[in-house]
């Protein structure tokens, strides 16, 4: 499966990349929402999963989600926010704008696996 990690922090991109590769994903990266749109437009196939930070320069995660949901060809890409924004109203906003799921930082590997399992994206046999 293919995933894309969208976060302005190199450290976070690396953590998420390693995590997804451990679940047999190939991984694309982008440092902000605008770059992510470019990466996705030039990719060979549509990722099944996007892990998206909120606070990024140029185009933030919420703006990216809104854009992504306008694209019928990206309909099957599951959009998961991964962010420190943890206010109730912010989570509501993200879900209302089209994010499918929401992970609050800090997260553990087990917690991420649980979330991906909820979305049917974890291969059978992965224990948490």
């Amino acid at each position: 499966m293919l995933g894309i990690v969208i976060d302005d922090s190199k450290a976070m991109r690396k953590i998420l990349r390693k995590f997804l590769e451990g679940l047999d994903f190939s991984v694309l990266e982008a440092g902000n929402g605008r770059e992510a749109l470019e990466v996705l437009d030039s990719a060979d196939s549509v990722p099944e999963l996007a892990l998206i930070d909120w606070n990024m320069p140029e185009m933030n995660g919420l703006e990216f989600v809104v854009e992504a949901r306008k694209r019928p060809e990206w309909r099957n890409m599951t959009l998961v926010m991964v962010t420190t924004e943890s206010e109730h109203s912010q989570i509501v906003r993200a879900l209302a704008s089209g994010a499918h799921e929401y992970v609050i930082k800090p997260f553990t590997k087990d917690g991420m696996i649980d979330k991906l399992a909820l979305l049917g994206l974890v291969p059978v046999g992965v224990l948490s």
Partner: protein
Amino acid sequence: MTDEVLPTSDDLDNIAEQVWSAFLADGHEAVVDGAEPVDLDADLAASVAIVGAFDGHVVVTSSRDGSREVASALFEMSADELSADEVGDALGELANVLGGNVKSMLPAPSTMSLPRIASAAHGHWPGTVELCRTVVAWRGNQFILILLSSRQQDRLERVVA
């Protein structure tokens, strides 16, 4: 005077414990205790600025070694393979995650800046007062987590008290 509730050092302890156990759980215990005597030669300071209903900063300071350990754990690489950039980036992400959690306990709405990393000698935040702090001891290094406020009302209170 409003009766808003601001985070205390117990809250910082709670947040630091969660962040360390999620991102930096490598079998080495993190001891979080604001009362621990500080023995830190801080080299680096990473901070995020908060603007809005609350104005201030959340700062993490550490030694260069400590930051390298954080980067090593986050990147899952050995310390000598890391570039200065990566070390700064890791500490910045730590400030980002700690700051984001602290922000959720501050008066809303406010926005948080991207993290800024500076050498500790050059890191200062004029016109601010310290509201609370805690110390994390991990892998033989200390990390100091500080909440600063630049709001008039917090500065005045400090003067009176």
